[in-house]
């Protein structure tokens, strides 16, 4: 167990390293002088030089990279060109709405996706199976922000069941907090639920063909008991995998959907940073999201050993 855990952690390091190199080297793809571009058109030469110095662009790339990685390891992601505040502080200020939204959407998708997939697998070609196909095809064709506007239009603007926009922190009470996140979380969940359900279905169909399921049926166990207690556990590995890999889609979707529902989260920070060409902020957001993705998938890899004791390599 310990050696497996250590090996998994060691395997994650080169991936994080590649992410760091990619994000770092992006700045060198700027057409022309990055300092000049980032400082803006009205900047005085002194301001351009200040941007250049603050990004370390006056030093050779490899020295800058070593310094940049060193700073990150000490928790310093640099400072915003626009507000001059530390990037870690700016992201920290915006973390609550985004984290709440992502956690809410993940829980919602798992709670809907797995039973949906089990239902589809229990009767291939049945109502649930056809519904799953329809949700998948349609879900993959609608941009996440359009789903958000459609839900907001029906359930907030017309029916007034839920607030149209805005975020209520958890300190305002749990109900207003959940109400402010319900529509954005549902919009985000559509694709993620469809992916989880589709993988659950495929994985369940394979398990349901096995002998021990027939034995369980022959023993006279109820179909629901067999589906959820016997089959689902053995079908869970691919489902856990897709829950992990799908997190990337969810994080990306959260950045977009926050702008539909005016949630003051990391996504809004990112969009504001784009309009100011505040590259250190964008860099910080991309780096932290990728790190979160790698960590979630590391946790998924480690969860395999708990779910399937045969996995030991």
């Amino acid at each position, binding site marked *: 167990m310990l050696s497996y855990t250590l090996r998994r952690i060691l395997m994650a390091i080169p991936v994080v390293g*590649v992410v760091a190199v990619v994000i770092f080297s992006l700045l060198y793809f700027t057409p022309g002088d990055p300092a000049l571009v980032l400082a803006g058109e009205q900047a005085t030469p002194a301001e351009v030089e200040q941007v250049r110095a603050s990004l370390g662009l006056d030093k050779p790339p490899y020295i800058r990279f070593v310094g940049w990685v060193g700073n990150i390891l000490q928790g310093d992601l640099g400072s915003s060109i626009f507000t001059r505040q530390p990037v870690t502080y700016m992201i920290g200020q915006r973390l609550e709405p985004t984290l709440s939204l992502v956690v809410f959407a993940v829980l919602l998708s798992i709670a809907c996706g797995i039973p949906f997939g089990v239902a589809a697998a229990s009767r291939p070609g049945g109502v649930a199976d056809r519904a799953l196909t329809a949700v998948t095809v349609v879900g993959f064709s609608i941009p996440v922000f359009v789903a958000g506007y459609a839900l907001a239009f029906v359930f907030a603007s017309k029916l007034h069941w839920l607030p149209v926009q805005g975020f209520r922190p958890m300190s305002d009470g749990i109900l207003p907090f959940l109400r402010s996140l319900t529509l954005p979380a549902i919009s985000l969940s559509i694709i993620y639920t469809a992916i989880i359900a589709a993988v659950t279905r495929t994985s369940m169909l394979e398990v349901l063909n096995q002998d021990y399921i027939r034995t369980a049926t022959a023993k006279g166990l109820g179909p629901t008991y067999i589906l959820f207690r016997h089959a689902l556990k053995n079908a869970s590995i691919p489902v856990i995998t897709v829950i992990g890999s799908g997190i990337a889609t969810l994080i990306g979707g959260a950045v977009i959907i926050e702008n539909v529902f005016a949630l003051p989260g990391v996504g809004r920070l990112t969009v504001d940073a784009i309009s100011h060409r505040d590259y250190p902020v964008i860099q910080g957001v991309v780096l932290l999201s990728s790190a979160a993705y790698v960590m979630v998938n590391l946790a998924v890899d480690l969860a395999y050993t708990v779910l399937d004791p045969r996995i030991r390599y």
Partner: protein
Amino acid sequence: MTAIPAVPLPVRPRRLDLSRPIGFLRDHPGAAAGAGLLTLMLLISVLAPVLGTIDPRALSISDRLAGPSSEHIFGTDQLGRDLYSRVLYGGRVSLTVGFFAALLSCIAGTLVGLISASFRMLDGLMMRIMDGLMSIPAILLAIALMAVAGASVQNVILAVTVVETPRVARMVRGVVLSLRELPYVEAAIASGSTSIQIMFRHLLPGLTGPIAVQATFCWAAAMLIEAALSFIGAGTPPSIPSWGNIMSDGKALWQIKPELIFLPAVFLSATVLGVNLLGDGLRRALDPKSGGGK
């Protein structure tokens, strides 16, 4: 890391036979519907100038936020621009971005996948790079690229290509690794063909089917990413009417005039749906498990 696992195919994948496209579409009604939708959208975009449109950028302050009328079928936006013309011309950007991003990412991904599977020395390094790229949420990687490269249609295509290439490369590598075990490739190796000959003469034809399926997924993803980037102001320059830009312009007024968002959305979703249905039909036709053409 847990990227998409490269599942070796149990049998040799079917080759894509497009010599009888009519037969393929007849056997796959979903794909036929998809091809129909896509053709319709292509025609609308190409023929936009003769479909009763006016200049999609022409401002008309007196006609701001007009409702549907004989003059403006879909009404106008807050600058008095004709929504019908903007939506029709908007398809050009989406379809162009989708097509070129799919083409470029399939070319780049196929090369990376072929090289990775053929030269084991490079395999570890190249796949770690692909894993790293895939660990960055797609839309955030595209945002970061757009932030440094600046807004232009070419840069959107480039950003989407960078995002999609690792996915193609992973898939191609997986298929090549299983193809390499087949007798005809072993025979080619035994008869002294060079690596380059094997890659392009023996492996590439077996890859056309899976790549065609992947190309449709890239195309669909590219159109959705373009829309999302333009929507948040990091995509196609605002002066060009793309579906994403029309929706971006509409977001301030979505409660008063929701059609500014929903009309382009219907066109975009119909196009993406068409591409997805076509891809799904190709995937079914090529799936060795689903016996025959059905």
